[in-house]
């Protein structure tokens, strides 16, 4: 529709504190909020994304005070003051909206840049919007482009390859030492949360076995069960060292629990197969001198942090490349929209047809009380199929212009508008 624009409104972790975000978190699925959104006057296409870090709306609508007020009411209800809301909310139009959406889908706007989750969330949100017929020509195209931006960024840059977390760093190092982790065994000394997380990552890489040594055996058994491993007592520690390859230590012990002198005979028994110690306890559990032994690698929490930092800076470099892809794709979408100068006419035509259908349905359906809901829906579907087919040829006629000269396009638009009585006030 002439005057209609792509509008993106939202709040995210950067602009809005969590106290506000949790007040508006759209819980209980997408259906109800989407239906509400659709009812707002002037909104023709809509789409809603809600994650723990962001709530974003994408609309095709005619912008105006009234619309913004309605949206604010929809987002915040009366729980937050209007002025405050405007402070948190960002609103982008057309090109900027497209750019922002692409930044989000490329995971460049995420809290952890490059994390892969956001794409799944976008797709999920789009599935709901499409199911409820909230999206139309423009948003369908735009969102599919957003997915291909994400795909390009993923394949053409290494942005997703170096995740930034301590446990990921541990896995990364283990891989550089052992290559394949498939036949390796992990020993957890102490059952802290961090150790658990790291073990989970390692299990995700397919390690053969997890052994848990804890002071209180009961907790050890419990944790071991989670990983289908076994629990051993603290006294068996040295014996276990001969079997395992990766040791994650996180006890609350104030003193060092493993010294170089303890490990030296173990290495002989292991025939020098490498040992990888990860000490995430503070104060440290493991003798720093362990690292001086051949085929023994010891990393404490600070060392792991430096790996994380390295990964982070690697990501920033890749993010620059990714941003270029986003710019490129925004430009090409912009071009597509420009090329669709005939779009307003198409949209007007469609809207007119839809309007007629709806009003006729409203007249007819109440008189057909005997019909079940399903049958009514079938009639609606039939009606829209008829109009779509009726409009097909005029639309093809219109669109064929875009490859020819602009001048004839203008003439054809006028012709169509006259024939279908699409009033001047709408153009």
């Amino acid at each position, binding site marked *: 529709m002439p005057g209609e624009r792509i509008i993106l409104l939202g709040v995210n972790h950067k602009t809005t504190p969590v106290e506000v975000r949790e007040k508006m978190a759209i819980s209980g699925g997408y259906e109800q909020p989407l239906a509400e959104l659709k009812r707002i006057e002037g909104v023709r296409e809509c789409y809603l994304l809600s994650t723990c870090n962001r709530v974003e709306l994408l609309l095709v609508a005619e912008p105006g005070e009234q619309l913004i007020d309605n949206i604010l009411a929809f987002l915040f209800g009366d729980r937050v003051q209007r002025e405050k809301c405007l402070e948190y909310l960002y609103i982008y139009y057309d090109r900027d909206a497209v750019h922002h959406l692409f930044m989000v889908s490329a995971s460049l706007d995420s809290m952890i840049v490059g994390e892969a989750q956001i794409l799944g969330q976008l797709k999920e949100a789009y599935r709901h919007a499409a199911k409820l017929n909230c999206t139309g020509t423009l948003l369908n195209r735009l969102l599919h482009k957003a997915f291909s931006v994400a795909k390009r960024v993923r394949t053409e840059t290494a942005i997703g390859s170096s995740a930034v977390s301590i446990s990921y760093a541990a896995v990364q*190092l283990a*891989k*550089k*030492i*052992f*290559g*394949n982790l498939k036949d390796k065994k992990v020993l957890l000394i102490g059952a802290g949360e961090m150790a658990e997380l790291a073990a989970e990552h390692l299990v995700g890489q397919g390690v053969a076995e997890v052994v848990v040594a804890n002071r209180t055996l009961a907790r050890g058994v419990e944790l071991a069960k989670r990983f289908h491993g076994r629990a051993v007592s603290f006294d068996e520690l040295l014996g276990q060292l001969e079997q395992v390859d990766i040791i994650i230590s996180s006890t609350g012990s104030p003193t060092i629990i493993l010294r170089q002198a303890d490990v030296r005979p173990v290495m*002989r028994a*292991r*025939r*020098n*197969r*490498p040992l990888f110690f990860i000490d995430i306890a503070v104060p440290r559990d493991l003798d720093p001198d362990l*690292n001086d032994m*051949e*085929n023994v*690698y010891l*990393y404490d929490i600070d*060392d792991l942090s*430096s*790996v994380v930092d*390295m990964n982070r800076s690697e990501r920033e470099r890749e993010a620059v490349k990714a941003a270029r892809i986003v710019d490129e794709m925004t430009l090409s979408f912009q071009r597509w929209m420009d090329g669709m100068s005939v779009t307003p006419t198409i949209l007007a035509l469609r809207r007119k047809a839809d309007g007629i259908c709806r009003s006729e349905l409203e007249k007819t359906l109440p008189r057909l009380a005997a019909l079940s809901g399903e049958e009514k829906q079938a009639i609606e579907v039939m009606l829209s199929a008829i109009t779509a087919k009726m409009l097909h040829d005029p639309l093809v006629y219109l669109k064929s212009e875009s490859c020819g000269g602009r001048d004839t396009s203008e003439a054809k638009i006028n012709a169509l508008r006259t024939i279908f009585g699409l009033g001047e006030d709408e153009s």
Partner: protein
Amino acid sequence: MSEISYLLFQSVLLVTFLAAAAYCVFFVGQKNKIRDVARVLLVSSGILQTLYIVSRYFLLGHAPITSQHETLVVFAWATSWAYLSFRWRYTVKNFGMFVSLLILLLLVLSALVSREVSELVPALQSWWLPVHAGVSLLGYGFLSLAFCGGLMYLLQERELKNKRFGYFFVRLPSLDALDQLNSHCLTTGFVFLTLGIVSGSLWARQAWGTYWQWDPKETWSLITWFIYLIQIHQRFTVGWRGKRAAVMAIFGFAAVAFTLWGVTYLLGGVHSYAR
């Protein structure tokens, strides 16, 4: 023939240089397309080296493995094909760059020494010559792979131990992969080395009437052989691996190099036919 031979050698140099350059570019940029190009170039280089050796055979009328130039070329050839045969079974990330640089070095050295065609000394006129020298050099080829693997191991191990992750950390393979490479190449190289010594000894019996005469080259071969024997023995018994194995592989290669050139230039003896 000599012209063809000359052209072949120049193209070997060029193609090997391009292969090494492509591997270096791949090492920096990690773009898979460039690696594929580098592989094709290295295989071409291997084929050209073979052709060059064949052309040299026709030029000389005997196995081209006596002069310093020929030895270097055959050494490079053995290293190339040892790598390609190894590569066919195992993948070791960025191994190609190190190996191709070594091959290039050998070929450049061979270009610097005299390429003159010399008459074969009567003592060498035997079919033992290609067998003995060829097998020995093939062994050296595999041992030089172990040398490259050892260098890579030391670089990677240093990054892991010092916890300062620079250029090599992401680009070099895992320590385990490098250690396995060391083990495989040493074992294969050792078998060829042994065959080389045995064949040499049989030839000596035929030519000089005695199996062993403590000529400097023989002595040094034996020393090299023992260095590798100890290494392999220790790995199988007490599990020598990792850094120690890598250092030993480098040390062993130094012994190989000395046996091949040092002895000829410094110590002389019955093996020093050509300079």
